[in-house]
């Protein structure tokens, strides 16, 4: 006998993303909810009928009732799939807390919240050992009970937990620590973990699925679910499947002139094949002439249109008025004098107003160019 299921985690439904413009924030929030039908479709494609969500289904315990109803409605619609939901550090199962509220609101028939550290019969020959979190930091390894959980021989034991694996690093965001060798100690065929937002294999049969829809810039391969196949008591296959709508990327580039921008464009194209779904945080360093600075503004406008979101941090780019810039400002005239004065201050990193002077210089150049264009027209 064999069992196939989808391992996913960290949906964080209801995350507001309000640090972004309202339209984008709405899209990002909606994209999280949209993973439910998408994962259902992927499960069907893999002949799986169970989706194990390893914690942080919801972004916060304080999620409004309407958001909760909407989430469960999405799961209810996929009625051939059983959704097994584990409370994580974002949505711990506290007395009087979120999951009690969910119970009051009514849980669809095909959704099972795993609120107890007790074996759950996944299939005739597969038992799920869930390790729900009952607080943001329970101060113990919630998977410890798996070692002594008794199951009949010949039955596959599958662990489901949320937290940081000891030794893997503190990159996980919860303070919950999970023993790295839990799968071996507890005789698990597979340990499905959540918390780390990227897809990552800890041991052969201990995996973080990562979040199915990225929600932040760190590049750790988010945006996947795992299709897991177990034969008897043995793990057969873990397959990584892309599930994201948006991709988030963070890049750093040093620039000297306009000629460096095509390289950035090429770098973008390696990140995504669909730029319109890319959110890019681009940190620039180096220096640009005034003309190139103006060109950077244009480039920003162009690429802001191409990408879903572009955030350029050019505070690390020094402004340098070159001979051509000075020439454009009339060479020996008053504007050139002003530019030289501002440039001297902008270049002096110890000057308290050097950043202001740099911006003033860029504006001076911009206004001068505008004035010239108006005079010419």
């Amino acid at each position, binding site marked *: 006998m064999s069992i196939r299921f989808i391992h996913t985690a960290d949906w964080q439904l209801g*995350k*507001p*993303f*309000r*640090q*972004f*413009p309202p339209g984008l*924030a709405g899209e990002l929030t909606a994209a999280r909810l949209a993973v439910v039908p998408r994962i259902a479709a992927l499960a069907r494609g893999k002949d799986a009928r169970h989706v194990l969500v390893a914690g942080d289904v919801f*972004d*916060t*315990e*304080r*999620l*409004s*009732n309407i*958001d909760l109803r909407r989430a469960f409605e999405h799961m209810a619609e996929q009625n051939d799939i059983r959704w097994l939901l584990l409370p994580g550090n974002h949505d711990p199962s*506290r*007395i*009087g*807390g979120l999951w*009690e*509220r969910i119970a*009051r609101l009514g849980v669809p028939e095909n959704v099972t919240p795993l609120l107890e550290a007790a074996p759950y019969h996944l299939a005739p020959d597969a038992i799920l050992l869930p390790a729900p979190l009952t*607080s943001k930091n329970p101060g113990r390894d919630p998977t410890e009970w798996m070692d002594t959980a008794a199951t009949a021989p010949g039955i596959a034991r599958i662990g489901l937990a949320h937290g940081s694996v000891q030794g893997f690093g503190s990159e996980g965001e919860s303070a919950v620590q999970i023993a790295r060798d839990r799968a071996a100690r507890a005789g698990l065929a597979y340990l499905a973990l959540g918390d780390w937002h990227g897809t990552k294999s800890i041991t052969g049969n201990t995996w973080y699925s990562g979040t199915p829809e990225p929600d932040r810039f760190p590049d750790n391969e988010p945006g996947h679910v795992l299709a897991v196949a177990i034969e008897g008591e043995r793990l057969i296959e873990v397959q990584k499947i892309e599930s994201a709508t948006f991709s988030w990327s963070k890049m750093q580039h040093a620039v000297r002139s306009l000629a460096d921008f095509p390289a950035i464009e090429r770098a973008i194209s390696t990140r995504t094949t669909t730029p319109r779904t890319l959110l890019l945080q681009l940190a620039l360093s180096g220096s640009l002439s005034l003309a190139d600075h103006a060109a950077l503004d244009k480039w920003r406008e162009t690429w802001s249109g191409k990408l879903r979101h572009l955030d350029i941090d050019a505070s690390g780019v020094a402004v340098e008025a070159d001979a051509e810039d000075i020439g454009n*400002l*009339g*060479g*020996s*005239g*008053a*504007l*050139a*004098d*002003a530019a030289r*004065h*501002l440039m001297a201050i902008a270049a002096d990193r110890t000057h308290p*107003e050097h*950043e*202001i*002077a740099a*911006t*003033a210089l860029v*504006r*001076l150049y911009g*206004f*001068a160019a*505008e*004035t*010239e264009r*108006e*005079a010419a027209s």
Partner: protein
Amino acid sequence: MKLRALRVANFRRFAAPVAVEGIADGLNVLVGPNEMGKSTLFDALEAAFLTRFKVTGAVLDAMRPYAGGDPIVEVDFEAAGQRWRIRKQFGRGATAILTDIGAGRAVARNAEAEDLLSRLAARGAGRADDAAGRLGLVWIRQKRALLPPTPDTDPGSGLPKPRGEQAVLLDAIANEVGAAVSGDQFEGVRAKVTSALNVLLTPKRTGIKRNGPLDLARQARDEIRGRLDEAEAAASVAQNRLDRIATKAEELAVLQSPEARKQSAAHLAGLEQRLEAQKHVRTRRDLQRETAKAREAELAAASQVMQSRKSLLEALTLKRQALGEAAALADDIRRLSEELNREPVTPAALERLLTLDRARDVAAAELKGQAAVVTFKLAPSADGNVTIAGAPVPAGTRIDVPGEIAIDIKGVGTIVVASANADRGSDLEQRRIAAEAALKDALDTLGVVSIDAARERAASRAAKVDGLAKARARMAALAPDGVEKLRDEVNALDARLGRAAAAQPAVDAIETLAAAAVEARAAYETLSSGAMTDQAFDALASECAALREKESRRDAEIASLNMVLANLKGEQAGADEDGKAAQADALKGELERATKEVQRLEHEAQALRYLEATLAKIEEGARTEFVAPLVRRLQPYLAQIFGDAELGFTDGFAPERLQRGSVSEPVAALSDGTREQLSVLVRLGFAELLASGGEAVPLVLDDPFVYSDDRRLEALKTMLARLNAIPQTIILTCREEAFNSLPSHRLTLGAWSDAKTAS
């Protein structure tokens, strides 16, 4: 530009139409008496070029004649190589018509006509709005010459005006120094900075513009912050409530579970067992403490006995010593007492002796005072021949004779010498003998030979008295109750010591007692260490009691906890429905965004302010440089009028100091005449600058030399006659005589015959 004709109707004092025709190139002079209306002509000229045809209110009223009517002004001029006519009618039916005279047709009307007129008047400057500035620089009203060019700030608001006379002058100078492009660009950039800043900040830059983007961004941020605070407060309340729910639920679960009930009972049993055990241990400890105290008391008593005998022995030794000393003292006292009893030379006896001695001396002295003095001055041969009572008298003898004396001289007879009062002398002699006898008697009685011997004996006696007193004092200290009593005490102590020696415990017995005490104390310590402190014991007892109490109230507590939990959960459900806490995360994101926007705009405002200040500073510097071309233009004129002189300027192109030779004077301190002349010269400089920078503008001076004396006026006229650099100059003056000799084109004021037709 050159003016060719000026025609006026219904304009102030000119109700009837008048005209000045045929204005020529070079120097033109219109001479007319005061009240002729020269200044009115000047105003009309300005009105034609600078006053909007649609003007109303005070400006219009000022142009109207006293009798009323709508003012009409018409000027023929040349510009851009063509002849033009501008005709403006103000008031009712206001119109402006610009006519191309060559083509004989109106090329523009009203606003368009005015716009085109401005362009023609400002030709060379490139900006239509420069016309007012350009004309203002060189069309100088009566006495206006004394003032500097109007600054580029509006005196009412203090704000910069877009284009004033200074700006025009600066542009003209910028043209001159070859910075034409940058000058224009500079103004353009500055205008953009100003308008960009005006959106963000107040005009004076001291505050944020109300409802501008920065103000709105701040308002939005503050509003979000307020909402976030509310949401976080709600979230914090919810968090606390959830914590309380968790705590209470846990307590309830513990109370309700049979396992816990069993555990609690076992816990209580354990506690009670410990309590009983402790009670036992504590009793034994208390008993042992008493035992240890008893052993220690016994040891103390034995030690005390030993100690007391030692004290007795010491006391006895001391007493015995005292007794020995006291016995010796008693002997001394006795002996001394006896000796003193035997001694008659007491201080009183000595005193009496001394009294007798003094009495004898007194008697002797009295006797001597009474006596006659007989002195024997004998010849050597008389030796042995003179005797008294048979005894020879040696030569030189002198004797006192208190009574009578018979001096026998051998071979001569007897000489009896008697004192004056022989009886009294004899009496005194008797008394002296008696005193002597009394003293002798006293000495004999005391058994001494002399007063001195008596004194010695008295001193010896005093020493003994002293020794006796000391011995008695010591005796009183040693044996206050007498030697025998002391002896009794010694005997008594001796007896006690004897008895004590009989009762004394053995040294080893004391050691045994000490060992017993230590052992008893150690046993107590051991028991103590096994016993709880009072505090811990009390706590244990209280815990037991509380637990017993709790067990007995368990059911009531379960009911109460259930109620509390139901209430808390109800509150929580209400808060969840309210959803305020749910917004906190969203609002945090919004606040981050709003804060960034505020920072961006603040940075923008700061940068623009910085740019504005930098441009102002640069311009300031440029302005100083820019005076040079004006000074150069002015120099030849100054030389003609003032000889070796130099004029200094303020930043606003106002003449500041006049340097003549080594003397430098502030312009304000100069005479009216000199100031007037200087100002006209400066205007000539302005006119030259404008002429060199674009199409020239005619210089128009209304009564320019009111204060000038004849000599200066001659020099000025000579200078005006040679004004080659300025293509056209028009002087309006009342000083006919003065200007008669000036080679110039004379203008006259005539009737404007075809005024009506023209209109």
